[in-house]
């Protein structure tokens, strides 16, 4: 870095005006300019930054994730019914729940096609957890439904299956790591806050879990597919640039 020659010899002008200030002021303006340029170019480079940092972050996230450890739940009185915001990428699809089937297939020994009444015969798990959105808001919600690990225990994944795809009636798609799918609080839910799930919240069946961000928690799920490899497509928001692991 080049240096400005500085006048430090006795100089009466110094006392009169703030001429000594020009160098720091110029540097401050340079800094402010550099800051704005950084925001501009940095915003263009966000994909590169994510591409470099996300693999590292994902390794740390999956390393510290404890797949068997339940997340502490809240009392019923802590539920925040007004805080859960309805997000979807193309509105609420119309689903006839009598004709509805949940398909579980892919790398499993025992592919399944289940109706809502089949699902409701399985053990009901209820939990009061914090639902956290990538946007920054959170809501404490009660979800009731079937543990995914119970469903997979029936479908019997092949040993090589490592990932799970969720396909929804509206075209939304997601993929998860198997560890998070098998977490004891990852549910296929059909109840919210003690009531049957409303269509805008994902009826007849949606994902609910305290261990993933909201965009991983697909609504209107119609098909669960186990696979040994992630494909080119990993999820609606992920393919646009959001993190894939998105663990909490």
């Amino acid at each position, binding site marked *: 870095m080049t240096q400005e020659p500085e006048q430090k010899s006795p100089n009466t002008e110094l006392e009169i005006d703030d001429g000594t200030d020009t160098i720091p002021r110029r540097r401050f303006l340079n800094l402010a300019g550099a800051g704005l340029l950084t925001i501009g170019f*940095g915003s263009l480079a966000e994909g590169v930054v994510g591409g470099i*940092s996300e693999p590292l972050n994902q390794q740390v996230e999956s390393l510290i994730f404890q797949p068997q450890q339940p997340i502490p739940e809240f009392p019923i009185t802590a539920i925040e019914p007004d805080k859960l915001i309805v997000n979807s990428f193309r509105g609420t699809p119309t689903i006839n729940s009598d004709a509805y089937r949940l398909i579980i297939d892919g790398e499993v020994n025992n592919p399944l096609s289940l109706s809502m009444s089949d699902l409701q015969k399985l053990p009901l798990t209820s939990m009061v957890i914090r639902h956290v959105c990538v946007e920054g808001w959170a809501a404490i919600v009660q979800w009731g439904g079937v543990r995914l690990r119970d469903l997979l225990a029936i479908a019997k994944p092949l040993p090589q299956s490592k990932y799970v795809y969720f396909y929804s009636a509206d075209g939304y798609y997601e993929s998860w790591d198997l560890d998070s799918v098998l977490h004891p609080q990852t549910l296929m839910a059909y109840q919210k806050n003690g009531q049957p799930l409303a269509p805008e919240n994902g009826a007849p069946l949606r994902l609910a879990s305290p261990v993933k961000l909201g965009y991983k928690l697909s609504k209107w799920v119609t098909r669960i597919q186990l696979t040994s490899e992630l494909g080119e497509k990993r999820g609606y928001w992920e393919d646009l640039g959001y993190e894939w692991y998105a663990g909490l």
Partner: protein
Amino acid sequence: MRSPVMPKQALPTKVFHWVSLVSLFLMMTSGLQIYNANPVFGGRSGLHMPPIFGLGGWLAGGRHWHFAMMWIFVLNLLWYGIYILLTRRWQHRYVSGKDVKALLVSQNVKRKNYAWHRVVYTLLIPILLLSIFTGVGMYKPAQFYWIVDSFGGWDALRITHFMAVPSTLILGFLHSQLGRKVGGDRLLDSMFWRNN
């Protein structure tokens, strides 16, 4: 050197200051980008920040920057913490009882300014550590549920994390101005630009 009192800075201190300045700038601007997705104050229709201060262009981009820079920001504080422990700088470079005494009883304006200077930059450390603590709680609220609980809930945690921005800006500004009062522009120069 023409000046007989040109302050000298240890290289690690200069590196720490540069990395802190740059990483904090990137953490704050990417943080404001994330903030704007759902303002801490008022939600979607709430108080938005001017978009020009938001790094990343959109929410995912802001998150990419924030979660990349957090490593540099945290590791910079960590190695510098180890450095001041090993060199015992923590014993004589930070605010002490003598500074408090100077503030209370001293008539010497220079001594008082120096004491304020030490108060302010020492105070920056817990503020920055608090931003890491609240940040971990927001990044992993399920695994570090006790961090969220210790703030009484999600909203209080978000507000505390956000408050790192104004507190760091104010303390950083005071730090630079008190530094100039104590050591003049040459002190600032010695920390950031001048080779010595």
